[in-house]
């Protein structure tokens, strides 16, 4: 709990001492001159020369920004398209199917040739 120091005389003296003071002559004009200077300094930024601000970026920050853009671009390009992947799988399946057919055909012809060698070309192979 705040217990005021019971001394109205002291508080009165302090109020008198710290009474509002009038600023010196020309104070307002000097403040306004600094405000106008500040306003002029800020004017180019106000009209949005963003490319100038970019150019004024520190070299390190600019290099970092360029690197980040490159990484982002590479990442976008490196991600495979799912439809491309499916088409390549279909192509591989077709090739494998064709190769299998050729192998079976080859095996069949070899089997006929072997029979001809063993039993003669005109002999019928009987089950007896």
């Amino acid at each position, binding site marked *: 709990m705040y217990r005021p*120091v019971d001394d109205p005389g002291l508080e009165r003296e302090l109020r008198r001492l710290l009474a*509002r003071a009038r600023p010196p002559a020309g104070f307002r004009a000097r403040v306004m001159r600094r405000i106008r200077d500040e306003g002029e300094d800020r004017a180019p930024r106000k009209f949005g020369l963003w490319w100038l601000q970019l150019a004024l970026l520190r070299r390190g920050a600019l290099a970092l920004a360029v690197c980040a853009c490159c990484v982002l671009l590479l990442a976008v390009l490196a991600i495979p398209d799912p439809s491309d992947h499916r088409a390549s799988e279909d192509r591989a399946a077709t090739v494998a199917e064709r190769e299998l057919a050729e192998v079976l055909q080859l095996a069949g012809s070899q089997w006929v040739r072997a029979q001809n060698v063993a039993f003669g070309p005109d002999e019928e192979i009987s089950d007896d």
Partner: protein
Amino acid sequence: MDTPSTRLLDAARDDPAGFEGIVNATQGLVFSIALGFFRNRQIAEDVSQEAYLALFRNLHKLRSDLHVVNWLRQATTRKCIDYSRRIRHRPFFDLAAVDEPRVPPAEPDPLLASELGRRVAELPPKMRMVVILRFQEDLKLREIAETLEMNVNTVKTQLRRALIRLRPRVEHLRQEVSYVSTSR
């Protein structure tokens, strides 16, 4: 509920020249806080100008004229405390800030005012600012706490300690003054 006035703020936003209205309305407040803190008119003016520049840069964040006044008061107190820390300003009492002694010497007594001013200037920065906001700006303890971003209990303690520090010397001087005036 009444809508807070934004007349000064709108004028200042439209045109930098409109900022003059804000300066006109608040220059006494800003300059007095700085003068009460430093007891030096030149430093007080420099700090006041810095406070107005900060206000100009932050106008877009403010919502009403009352907000401008509160923001400005807080900015001035901060600038004073920061400035005193930065330059390690040894406070001194500027004689130009004291009223010319009148004849017959009516209140306030110049000797007492001078000594009290010196004692106030010797208080630590935050404690000094609490005294100024209390006795110059007539702020409540809660308002002082908000302005200085302090706990209300800390403000109470600081104010009490400040008054305890100032009291004995002032009491002594008061006795001297009454002795001189009765012996005349």
